[in-house]
């Protein structure tokens, strides 16, 4: 049971994130929702690579014994890097939207265009 807790956390995080994206009207909160989903997926990847009682996968300074899988960690790092880029991009777009509309609430961003 105890080994399944990370997976439950993953599901919880993804659901929280998705519901934030779907139900929140504030653009910043939508971005936060996306980053929460991201964390959920990253947590999932990390959990996949963990073995009970293992140490960090650094060969040269390993005390011996089992090591965690390094590949999921590398994947997670890559995904974090991508996440940073995406978040930065979204935030910069939101800055522009805020500058134009003076609000972050999507309901108040009336469309004047056709």
């Amino acid at each position, binding site marked *: 049971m105890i080994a399944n807790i990370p997976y439950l956390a993953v599901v919880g995080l*993804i659901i929280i994130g*998705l519901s934030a*994206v779907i139900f929140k009207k504030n*653009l910043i909160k*939508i971005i936060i929702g*996306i980053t929460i*989903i*991201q964390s959920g*997926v990253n947590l*999932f*990847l990390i959990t*996949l690579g963990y073995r009970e009682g293992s140490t960090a996968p650094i060969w040269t300074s390993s005390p011996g014994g089992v090591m965690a899988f390094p*590949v*999921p960690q590398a*994947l997670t790092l*890559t*995904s974090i890097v*991508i996440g940073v*880029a*995406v978040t930065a*991009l*979204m935030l910069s*777009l*939101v800055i*522009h*939207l805020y500058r*134009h*509309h003076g609000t972050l609430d999507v309901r108040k*961003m009336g*469309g004047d*265009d*056709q």
Partner: protein
Amino acid sequence: MNFLDQLLSHAPALLVAIPLLGAFLTPLIGRVNDKLRNIFVIGILGFTGILVILLAQQIFASGPITYVFGSLDPYVGKETVIRILFEIDALSIFMAMIAIVLSFSAALYSWAYMEKNTGLDKYYSLLLLLTVGMLGMVLTGDMFNFFVFLEITSIASCALIAFYINKVKSVEAGFKYIVVSTIGALFVLMAIALLYGQYDALNIAKLADSITFSFVDKIALVLLIAALAMKGGIVPMHMWLPDAYSRAPASVSLILIGTTQAGLYGVFRVLFTLYGNVITLPTISMGWALVILGLLTMLVGVIMALIQIDFKRLIAYGAIAELGYMFLGVGTCLTILANPDITLAQAPFAFEALKGGLFHVFNDALDVGLLFMVAGAVYYATKETSLNRLGGLARNMKYTTIFFIIGLLAISGIPPMNGFASKLLIYESTYQLNPILSIIAILSSIMLLAIFIKVFHAAFLGPKLPQFDTVKEVPRSMLLAMGFIAAFIIIFGLFPDLIVNTIVDPAANALIDNAGYMRWLIGG
């Protein structure tokens, strides 16, 4: 080994590496001179195009190529495959051709079209990055690598969609796109993690070899298909597409077609290759799902296009309708492939449908691309995209009008244009699955014709309007780019058999030849 062989043996890596290097060099060159930068970008894309053609020749002659990064051997030890590798079969190179044709003509088109904008260094960098992303998506043989390139494509195209940063609608379209595509990409990552957790591999061939279609695999399949069909703009997930296509600069809309098709490539690859060994297990439901999604896409695209008054938005919905044909063709083939009672040899129409679907991928890219360029040209000349306010442009913009007629005939599948060749293949094969499918396909094609005739009337014909008296024909680089694509359209339309036999047939074969894709695994 002479230089050409040397070049060719590294071509898979160079296809991605050279535009990437170009993308980072562009800002430096842009400091020297604007013209030099434009020539540099076009040169880089032209060189990549030549590499694609050289590589294509080799692949059509001798089968799939694997290129391992960082080592000559994909294996570490005896069993583990963790190295990143590119696995290029005929389908990959087919998609790469589409991507490079679109990027090249977009770069050519941008020369005049974007000339008056600032921030062009970044624009061209992103353009090259987007090309890198598309090429990487179609060439890679590794699931995680696929995800990375997917994200590169998303980020680059989002930034390009929102390029007119002072127009709030562009920014909104960009934001919509990035939110949707990031969530989609995270679904893909989740699915990759699910597969990795079970089979301890990221390589597509390795995964395809060991996949068992467990419950978790089904979840992964649904996540992958949903996310990639979203990237491809298939109907229930199409809401980002009209905004993105219509708000981006016309040259960017052109490349975005390539991105959506890279998404479709993902769908096909996942269904036919990744789940290829277990394709008979999910019975016929997946194929029918594709067929029904295809029909839905066609009808929704056509009906929504009917009521649009914005030129580019209308073309965007037309593009959605065209996407349906690909799903229809490929779905028909999958239905037969997945049916354990019928072999492919007993139902030759399935293979024809697949060929039609894949051929239509190329044709759609050309047709819709040409129409977007024409819309861009009209915008460039008149600063107007609303069909209600346009009119009578055929007097002043003769060449643009001719290109529009070519695009119109091609998209609605009128002979002798290329759209007819692929749609014919689709009509003549899908009716054997069910006659209604072909009837709906023909109907929506005719509706498309009517819609674009309406556009033709609204924008190019009709009485003279005083505000467009001084309108001039667009500059030469834009005409050149349009002519480039139009030449493809006409050649493909006049010699469809030639194209189908040399390019499409190997691609379709590669898609259903699962063992061929996995050949390197067993060493051969």
